[in-house]
């Protein structure tokens, strides 16, 4: 290789390194280092003031205490349910945006989906409180319509948490779905129809297989967001919410038991990793492909 060729190559490498530095720093300082620290924390035990010893006690406590692992399983199940519901709600919305609405209407609908996200999550959750609490708008309406005799408390149910989570996650499902549905050639749908397919067959054999990467990407994002959500389950579920993030919060902030909190954090990480791997396995896809194609 010539002198100048080597020089150009070297300059390119330098440029790449400079451009990647912020991202790599971010990854190292804010994600990798804290996790290493948390991992170390989770594997130790306080045996005397300021004296610690390596131990598996934190993890043992989790399995020994039924409250802890029940909340853990409950969080996983409700998150999966919320993800499934979000998919069911988002799919028709995405279909209309991608295939039914024309250019202007389509962008307008997209903006409508986006608008709730201009408001902070706290304010949105508080909005649900105003609507659903016993003295709120919806219970009063139910009494007015004669459906219930007295105002009912609509907050603090699992269903309320699910409604809040679906609402919060909707956009993150709609975006990947829209982009994967937009790339579906309309003539494929017409061809399937022409060959005798009905709506259900076309959905099952053509649309869903085509949109699979988008569906998987949306589900991964929504599931992770839901699993790690603290605010919405807490505000809408109240004391009944029993969300795993609340246990972590309690250990770190209320009990000041960082070792236990760190162990919980790692269990949650393992859970989300495991569920995503399971989902990919079930839908027969690879993570890299899903992220590239959607």
């Amino acid at each position, binding site marked *: 290789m010539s002198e100048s060729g080597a020089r150009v190559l070297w300059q390119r490498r330098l440029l790449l390194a400079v451009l990647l530095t912020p991202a790599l720093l971010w990854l190292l300082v804010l994600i990798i280092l804290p996790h290493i620290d948390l991992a170390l924390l989770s594997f130790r035990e306080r045996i005397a003031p300021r004296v610690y010893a390596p131990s598996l006690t934190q993890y043992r406590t989790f399995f020994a205490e039924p409250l802890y692992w029940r909340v853990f399983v409950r969080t996983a199940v409700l998150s999966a349910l919320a993800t499934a519901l979000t998919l069911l709600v988002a799919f028709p919305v995405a279909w209309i945006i991608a295939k039914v609405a024309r250019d202007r209407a389509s962008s307008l609908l997209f903006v409508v989906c986006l608008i709730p996200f201009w408001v902070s999550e706290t304010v949105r959750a508080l909005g649900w409180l105003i609507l659903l609490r016993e003295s709120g708008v919806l219970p009063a309406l139910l009494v007015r319509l004669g459906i219930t005799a007295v105002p009912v408390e609509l907050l603090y149910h699992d269903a309320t948490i699910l409604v809040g989570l679906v609402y919060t996650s909707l956009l993150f499902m709609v975006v990947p779905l829209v982009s994967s549905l937009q790339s579906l050639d309309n*003539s494929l749908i017409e*061809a399937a129809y*022409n*060959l*005798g*397919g009905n709506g259900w067959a076309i959905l099952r*054999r*053509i649309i869903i297989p085509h949109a699979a990467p988008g569906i998987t990407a949306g589900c991964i994002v929504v599931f992770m967001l839901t699993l790690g959500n603290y605010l919405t389950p807490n505000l809408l579920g109240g004391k009944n919410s029993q969300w795993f993030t609340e246990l972590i919060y309690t250990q770190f902030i209320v009990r000041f038991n960082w070792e236990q909190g760190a162990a919980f954090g790692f269990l949650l990480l393992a859970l989300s990793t495991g569920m995503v791997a399971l989902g990919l396995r079930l839908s027969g896809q690879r993570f890299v492909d899903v992220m590239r194609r959607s």
Partner: protein
Amino acid sequence: MSVPDLSVEDLDKRFADHVAVDQLSFAVERGSFFSILGPSGCGKTTLLRMIAGFTVPDGGDIRIGGRSMRDVAPNRRPVNMVFQHLALFPMMSVGENVSFGLARRGVKKAERQRRATAMLERVGLAGALHKRVDELSGGQRQRVAIARSLVLEPTLLLLDEPLGALDLKLREHMKIELKQLQAAFGTTFVYITHDQSEALVLSDHVAVMNRGRFEQIGSPQQLYYEPASAFVASFVGANNRIQGRAVSVDADLVELATAQGWTIRARRHGAVAAGDAVAAFVRPEVASLELEAGRLGEPMARYAGEVQSVLFDGANSAVLLVEQQSRFEFRVALPQTGRLSDLKVGARVYFGFDPQRAICYAAAAAPGDAHV
């Protein structure tokens, strides 16, 4: 007499700003290859989509195998379609593509597999059953698209310019293959195209469509030798179009003078009176070319010209020349014997044609909108 496989009666379709299909009526015989030929925007795609059921007509009726298709959903019509870009399902194997329609009809899996295999064999794709669609070449995909439709044994197969996306060599090859497939299966084909060569080579009957109407329906030979209108004459095959005024009309021969003063004679088609604006059409192969005026035969008018360019294209070679006095540009086919192959630009030549083989039409109000 058998019921035609397709009959269309007074079919109408209007869009906001234009008429796509205008009071159209025609019938397609069982087992024939019927082409609809027209420029883009003539309404042929709308017509095809109405037959398939994707577009709802504003008026009129479509009968397939004698049965009215009014209120019959596209997935319940005895019609299958080969799409312009084929629309094979990329998420399925070749076999799954072919058996998709059978599965929708509730055919059992073993039977589907058997019929798909047999169909792929018939179109020359034995062994492609488990291949993925993107492993096939353009021509093979074409055959899968046809197999996928024909396995359902439709009354009618619609083809929407399926050769348009192929390169020239493959297109020529697929033309022959399509014709042979149609003959082998005996299914009625309705084929739309803007490529006149495809229509002429493939079809038993061709309809030339313009502005939502058929200008002419006939065999390829009729369209070529007896075009019913100026539009057909200019759209089908190469033609010299000579516009001018009728100077005199003598029985079926019209004498025509162009604005530049070139006078020719041509056979009249339809009513033409002296003084009318007219257009005459002379095919390049109807005209003869000689280096000496005396060698042109008797019925021919003789004109002197100058070679402007030599358009060598094998058997389709032609010379573009200008008539000496009027500077009118005229195209003459070169003899296939190779004689005159050494013509040079600027050479003085003589050309002429039999007036009986030149056709003259009264010019319509709008150019290209002539009706019979």
